[in-house]
């Protein structure tokens, strides 16, 4: 514990800005993963335990597409679409068989897939750490705000994610598709009785969740290093985010993700050994005050 370091950081604007932007980009990546997890849970009532692996796949897909084409925009699009398609296949082929059965089987199916994917990544891309480096388009001098550093890529990442968040919110709250998804979430039997193919809805939601996770993975490649098994820690974090924000709420996921990102970012200064512990303390506190999360519905 190092309260002095934390205090001295808070007293200097440049340190606050640097830590805040660092916290914001982790929070943004976390939001993309957590929003998909939350959306899938809210609609299908299953926790996609292999959601972190989708993030990992997104990162590796983007790495490969970038290595082949040298075009980062293409890499991001390819990774998001590829992972979305993968999620759809996974849902249709495996996950849809254990809907309605107990949590144990859902966990096991995902556990099996995580093990397979982690080893598959090792076979295809190797077990060593990979890093892609910053694409040339973003290799510019960073912006300075009150002495704090803001790399251009961070700004890009924050803007993209906020756009996605707004689009997602609009899709769910303001469109006919969103209405159908919400109806299927509340009462799938009734929805299908009204002539809507719920299997398509479920598959679509799963694919959308996968697409978001793949996008997060692709956006993370320039700032994170890649390794087999990298999806697991982000899975735990995005679970904590959805618990804090409330399962099934996109707005909750955004708030929760930003909070966790900031807690981690400032936590590394004050409590370098205990950053994970801080997240848990935070989550436990939220659960005690609001058992269904900040934006969750009671019951």
């Amino acid at each position, binding site marked *: 514990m190092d309260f002095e370091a934390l205090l001295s950081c808070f007293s200097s604007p440049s340190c606050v800005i640097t830590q805040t932007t660092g916290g914001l980009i982790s929070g943004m990546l976390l939001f993309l993963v957590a929003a998909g997890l939350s959306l899938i849970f809210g609609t299908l009532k299953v*926790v996609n335990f292999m959601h972190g692996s989708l993030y990992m796949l997104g990162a590796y897909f983007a790495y490969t597409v970038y290595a082949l084409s040298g075009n980062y925009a293409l890499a991001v699009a390819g990774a998001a679409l590829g992972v979305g398609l993968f999620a759809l296949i996974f849902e249709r082929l*495996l996950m849809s068989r254990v809907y309605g059965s107990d949590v*144990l089987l859902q966990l096991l199916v995902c556990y*099996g897939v*995580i093990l397979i994917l982690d080893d598959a990544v090792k076979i295809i891309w190797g077990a060593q750490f990979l890093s892609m480096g910053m694409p040339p388009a973003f290799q510019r001098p960073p912006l300075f705000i009150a002495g704090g550093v803001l790399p251009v890529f961070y700004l890009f990442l924050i803007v993209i994610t906020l756009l996605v968040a707004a689009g997602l919110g609009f899709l769910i709250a303001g469109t006919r598709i969103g209405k159908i998804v919400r109806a299927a979430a509340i009462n799938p039997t009734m929805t299908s009785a009204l002539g809507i193919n719920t299997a398509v809805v479920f598959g679509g939601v799963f694919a959308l969740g996968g697409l978001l996770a793949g996008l997060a993975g692709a956006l993370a490649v320039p700032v994170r290093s890649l390794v087999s098994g990298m999806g697991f820690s982000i899975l735990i974090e995005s679970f904590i985010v959805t*618990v804090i924000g409330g399962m099934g709420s996109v707005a909750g996921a955004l708030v929760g993700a930003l909070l966790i990102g900031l807690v981690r970012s400032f936590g590394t200064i004050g409590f370098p*050994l205990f950053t994970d512990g801080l997240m848990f303390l935070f989550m436990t506190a939220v659960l005690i005050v609001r058992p269904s999360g900040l934006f969750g519905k009671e019951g």
Partner: protein
Amino acid sequence: MIRSPIARDALIAVAAILVLAVLPLVFPGQAFSDFVIRLSAFAIFATSLNLLIGYGGMVSFGHGLFYGLGAYSFALLLQKGGISVPAAFALTVTIGGAVAAVIGAICIRLKEIYFSFLTLAFQMLLYSLIIAWTPLTGGDQGLTGGVPRPPFLGIRLDDPQHLYLFCCVVLVVSLFLMRHIVESPFGYTLRMVRDNPRRVGFLGVQAWRIRLLAFVVAGIFGSIGGTLMSLYVSSAYPDFAYWTISGEGVFMILLGGIGVFLGPLVGATLLLLLSDTVTRLTEYFGLVLGVVILCFALGLRKGLLGFALDAWAKRGGAGRSAPRPAVTAGKD
């Protein structure tokens, strides 16, 4: 015939210890006794997890926390505390129970999938603590310097034969104790809490107390499993607290049969045999294990022992069938 089930199980336990004691004469060689020692650790761990999953309907996905906690507490107490083996054992069990009481108190309030994930999250908290707290735990290298095992009561755990017998006795005694917990009035109340928590409330029992007690009991036995593992490797590694341990525990239960008391023991045996065979052939154990898990999760859901008991009941009409998988889709 013996009427009392306790006396009958005690007799079976004594017989099991005797058989295990004689087996090394039939299968001489280090490989066999090493296998049994590792099996004892995993079997206790998986059976304790089944107290929660099979009997309590609480799908914990973070039970490996207690495995890792037991291994690290025991090894650290012996290495840094310099106390005797029985004292370290007793302290480890106490620590396991106390931590389970705290974590259980937070987790059991939550509904099933939240419960699964929160237990998992706590396990990863322990894992990251172990990795971060290098001065105490040795970080990702694991505990270095070995674990001293001072002799007690004429038992020298440095001697492989003594260690083998010690692990066998701990295994059988633990299974015996858990069997009796499961068959006690508490065990039946636990099943009732699993099947119909609201009705349990009508009968004047506070369901959360039963759940918490089950969580503590499972935590205690889970840490005993870790203790045996740290004795075997004479160290402790962060892998013992990694989430895959919990996953393996859950899979052992499913593999052997969730509704049968000895299912997890059978599952642990099968999984260890599988892992020993596969790791000899390829380094991609996860790939093979993943495929096997998918086959079981989508196919043989009652586990091998449950499946065999069902087949036997059908053929002989002996009236004894394996209970249905205990965990029900949650609608409470």
